[in-house]
């Protein structure tokens, strides 16, 4: 008997008698060819009592510097927003935490209704009529949108702005190499997608166009213009959106976007070193039957009572197999629950207020930082929650110096973009106050100054 199993000596005797074998190993011997049996124990450490496992995992946690341990301005795709306590309470309830995908709707109405509410919230946020019940996360959602476009028009080329998150561009390339499309990039000019290069990249062989709002450098793109430029050639317009600024930014549905996807982490999900979170996936009515993943729908039971079911399942792998619109099965239901609870907690006014607050604080931070010697704006475009600056000193060393003071100033853009070796990307959440921003300015200013001295010395 090991942890979590319950077979006593007596149970074992009764069970083996009922089966009609002398030992459990007989069951394995009878079924697994001797040539592929493992003839030794697994080479793993011995099991530990619960308190020892806790201590080990706590020690590992203590060797990480989390957002609890430093004043962080890291963003670049995941953001340190406050996760309200009621989300922890709800997502750890057995009834939400431990069921499987709702294959038996009569005993899964809670989860199914949550999906329906989530879909409604995402439709509202994006102003697009169709949402699925979640996909894995942001970058693979972008890649899945590319596959949807391939199913829609079969064309061979996907045009992607260099303002799209590097992980999204890389994931799209990985997928597209499989499903058979070429990915071509359009560069940025003054911090946003170069409109001339974008227009020049269009053509009747373009399956999809992809931009990000706000883009990876924090700049607000002219989404409507980017979509309009792609419309005449009939490409599917895909936008990767940060959901938080959608309280104040024109939604994809109002800008001519056909498919809006994005990383849902900032909606009530913790950072978790990158996951699990969820990806949202919304589209126009025309793409309803090409959507990946689960979709919940409203219906009635035999007594006429309102109920919810998984619907439009003829798109899905378990029914349609090789003709399915995606292979996705398990996705991110619990994380999507956190998402809809978070949007409900913010509420209609709260989402707007949060957006306005971030807009003001981001502006303040940009002013404070670009006033420092050796720090200048990387672009002058409008920003809403994140902005990029150039440092006149080695970025990695400046970051390390700031971290020694307990401040993580942001992300070194050079890790992904060779054209911005001197770039630093700074993110603001409602957890970063004016006092925090002032401290960032002071620590960053000192670090840049010190590194400039170090370089000239």
């Amino acid at each position: 008997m090991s942890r979590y199993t319950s077979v006593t000596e007596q149970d074992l005797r009764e069970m083996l008698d009922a089966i009609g074998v002398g030992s459990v190993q007989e069951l394995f011997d009878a079924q697994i060819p001797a040539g592929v049996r493992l003839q030794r124990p697994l080479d793993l450490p011995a099991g530990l009592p619960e308190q020892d496992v806790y201590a080990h995992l706590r020690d590992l946690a203590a060797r990480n510097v989390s957002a609890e341990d430093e004043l962080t301005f890291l963003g670049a795709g995941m953001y340190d927003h406050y996760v309200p306590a009621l989300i922890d309470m709800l997502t750890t309830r057995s009834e939400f935490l431990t069921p499987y995908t709702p294959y038996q709707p009569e005993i899964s109405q809670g989860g199914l209704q949550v999906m329906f509410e989530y879909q409604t919230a995402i439709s509202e946020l994006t102003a697009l009529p169709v949402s699925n019940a979640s996909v894995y996360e942001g970058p693979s959602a972008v890649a899945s949108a590319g596959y949807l476009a391939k199913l829609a028009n079969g064309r061979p080329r996907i045009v992607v702005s260099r303002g799209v998150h590097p992980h999204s561009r890389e994931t799209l390339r990985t997928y597209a190499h499989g499903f058979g499309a070429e990915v071509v990039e359009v560069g940025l000019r003054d911090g946003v997608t170069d409109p001339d290069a974008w227009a020049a990249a269009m053509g009747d062989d373009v399956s999809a166009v992809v931009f990000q709002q706000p883009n990876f450098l924090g700049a607000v793109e002219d989404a409507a213009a980017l979509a309009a430029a792609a419309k005449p050639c009939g490409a599917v317009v895909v936008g990767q959106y940060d959901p938080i600024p959608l309280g104040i930014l024109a939604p994809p549905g109002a800008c001519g976007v056909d498919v809006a996807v994005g990383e849902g982490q900032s909606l009530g999900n913790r950072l978790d070193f990158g996951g699990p979170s969820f990806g949202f996936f919304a589209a126009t009515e025309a793409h309803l039957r090409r959507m990946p993943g689960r979709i919940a729908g409203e219906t009635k039971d035999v007594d006429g009572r309102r109920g919810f079911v998984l619907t439009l399942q003829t798109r899905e792998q378990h029914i349609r197999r090789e003709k399915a619109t995606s292979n996705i099965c398990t996705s991110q239901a619990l994380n999507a629950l956190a998402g809809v609870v978070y949007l409900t907690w913010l509420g209609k006014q709260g989402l707007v207020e949060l957006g306005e607050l971030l807009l003001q604080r981001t502006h303040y931070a940009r002013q404070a930082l670009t006033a420092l010697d050796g720090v200048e704006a990387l672009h002058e475009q409008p920003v809403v929650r994140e902005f990029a600056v150039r440092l006149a000193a080695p970025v990695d060393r400046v970051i390390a110096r700031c971290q020694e003071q307990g401040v993580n100033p942001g992300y070194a853009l050079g890790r992904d973009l060779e054209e911005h070796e001197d770039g630093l990307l700074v993110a603001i959440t409602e957890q970063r106050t004016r006092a925090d921003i002032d401290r960032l300015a002071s620590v960053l200013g000192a670090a840049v100054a010190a590194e400039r001295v170090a370089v000239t010395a």
Partner: protein
Amino acid sequence: MTGVTVAMDETRTVFEKGAPGRRAFTCPQLDVPQADGLLPEAFRRTEPARLPELTEPEIVRHYVNLSKRNFDLDSGFYPLGSCTMKHNPRLHERVAGLAGHARLHPLQAPERAQGALELMWNLERALGEVAGLPHVSLQPSAGSHGELAGVLLTRAYHEDRGEERHLVLTPDTAHGTNPATVTMAGYQVVKVATSPDGGVDVEDLRAKATEDVACLMLTNPNTLGVFDPNIEEIAEIVHGVGATLYYDGANLNAVMGQSRPGDMGFDIVHFNLHKSFTQPHGGGGPGSGPIAVSDRIQPYLTVPRIVRDGEGRFDLDYQAPKSIGRLRGFQGNYGTFVRSYAYIRSLGAEGLQDASETAVLNANYLLARLRQLGVADHLPLAFGEHCMHEFVLSGAPMKRELGIKTLDLAKRLLDHGFHPPTVYFPLLVDEALLVEPTETETKETLDAFAEALAAILREAAEDPEKARNAPYTTPVRRLDEAGAAKRPVIRQPL
């Protein structure tokens, strides 16, 4: 009237509750000088998203009441075949929630995320040992994502050798994700038949294994609960034509510490951390689908990779010219890694082996009880004499003799307080029920489940209408799924 109000309340969505002006969130004060014109009007949203307006007490009550309309593993038996609904230890939630894990930013500098990287490194080594394949990527987010990784790795492997192949073989018993993945990765599916003993039809495989085949995707034990007796020969045939052999790890819970996919000849394996390694299913995710691969596939693995230097320091390495690239953002579903790593450290080598032994014992015992109770007369085992960790019954005799279908049986089980087994899968068994009890259920629970099935069959012999109209005790009864698909209502009209 109170009763009516409550009944209505149960199915009202959060968008139908609350009132304008109510709120739960208090926005922090604007603490910086207000600046105007920061955002051009043309870029601004003109109409706010019509999100709900509720107070915290209302939100809590709404979602707690919704939760009560779910059945869950913590409340009862959940023998859903191929889904491995084993106990989710609460320790895992506690350790995953520690700030050092939960509030760690994925782009934190590696030298300040040493604990996380060490955890991932250790998990990679442990999974590699269980699989018998040394190189692991934790990146894929679910089983299907691991499958996509595996087929894309196969493509990269063949392209690197200058070969162009077009076909991927899958048995007709395969999970639907297998053929769907094949298409997404740009290949055509060729189905391989199943032999009378429930394994791959080796002659059919031999006939279809050509130089145009890139890969054979296999689950072993397969979805019939049968460990393929010819696995060594199958591997030889597949490798003989230069194809890769892919292991769908959905059923790994049968063989941990007993037999390893790598030793069976597989090149690529995916794990479902949300099955064999106790990540809670969350009502449909999050999951996690790490892959383990052989030496010849290693050059093509995803980036970034976790590396350790001579001094035991960990880092992320992006330099891998032959890599297929990324499959998602950041480093994968780290929160699931914490839980599964805690599980592996709790059980150790012996515990994992015991888990599989007990899973197989429980499945065979349940099967034996069903035979003792006469249930198997109407619901015979579809293949073989014994089973691995799960088994498939055919409801065809029950339908013929008692006039109730597998669906009716499943719905009647709901009234007995059990989650039904997987139904109508695998496809090649008529009226299939796929039963997987897992190792964490007691003998008493297995006995009670067997008794419930027997009681339903006895009842059906008297009055089949009872099962045909079930369930009766659930929050709602049978739902009009056809109507839902015909006229889809997938959001609340506002």
